[in-house]
């Protein structure tokens, strides 16, 4: 897959980091401000897709990226389920039990398990969208060869 012109490359170099930071902010502040795991994960995936579209790589790197992305997707979903199941072991026998202390309302570290759920879902959504994009790009590369 070929990259784009130097203007696109420079602009995406400048912007991709800011988009990535904004996605992390949306994920981490999901329990305080609008957003959360799904929105932040989609923004993170957008940053990755921007980099791949602007610079372009060869098919070996793309396949390597796809393997890692699908690995992180499985790990994100697994972490989400494990956090939910831990309620069985630690606290009352309830699935999705919020067993951590709640803390002060409105602080960054509060709301018990909800920020951890947000992070797990954010990783899962980001990796899933990026994997779909990479699968489409790899398919196109294989056909054109």
């Amino acid at each position, binding site marked *: 897959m070929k990259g784009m012109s130097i203007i696109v490359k420079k602009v995406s170099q400048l912007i991709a980091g800011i988009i990535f930071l904004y996605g992390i902010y949306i994920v981490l502040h999901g*329990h305080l401000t*609008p957003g959360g795991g*799904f929105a932040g994960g989609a923004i993170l995936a957008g940053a990755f897709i921007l980099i791949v579209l602007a610079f372009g790589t060869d098919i070996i790197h793309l396949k390597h990226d796809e393997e890692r992305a699908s690995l992180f997707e499985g790990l994100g979903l697994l972490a*989400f389920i494990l956090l*939910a199941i831990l309620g069985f072991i630690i606290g009352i026998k309830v699935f999705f039990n919020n067993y951590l202390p709640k803390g002060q309302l409105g602080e960054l570290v509060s709301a018990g398990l*909800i920020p951890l759920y947000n992070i797990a879902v954010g990783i*899962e959504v980001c990796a899933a969208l990026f994997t779909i994009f990479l699968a489409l790009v790899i*398919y196109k590369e*294989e056909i054109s060869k």
Partner: protein
Amino acid sequence: MEIILSILLIFMIIGAIYALFAKDLLSALISCGIVGYGLVICFLLLRAPDLAIVQVVVETITLIIMVAVVLDSTREDLKERIMIREKESSYINTKYVFNVLTVLVLALFFLFFFNQAIDKLEPFGTHTTRMAEAYIENGARVTGSANLVTGVVFDFRGYDTLGEATILFTAVVGILAILRLRGKT
């Protein structure tokens, strides 16, 4: 606000109808974008910023992917289909009349029952379900989350969120299974 919403909805309907009849596939995609981004403004006006963020990002990503697909394949509608349509033009007139009549009858039918049901509804903006009151009053205290939407999504409705994440996972598994040229040896 309802007037602005109605204007936006009319714009979205016009965009969707144009997308159906556009000859150029790229312009059809752009007019599909009217529907998506109009929906973003609707969500913002209805005070649902969580949904608006998700909608604007997902709309942008899908639009990028679909534009890439269209630029790679043929941009124009195929000529052959248009030729066939012209050949069978005598059939199409009766078909069109029948379709339009069916749509009108169904629209009147639904309008009648919608008119009957709308008397029972609460005024615009107030909720009718009893469960919502408990969520709104006790949500912040029980979950400890300042953003009520995240509190409901990850605490009260954890099963729903697990299902959504599983749907995305299943979609990726299906795409990885289908999108390949030959099977793994």
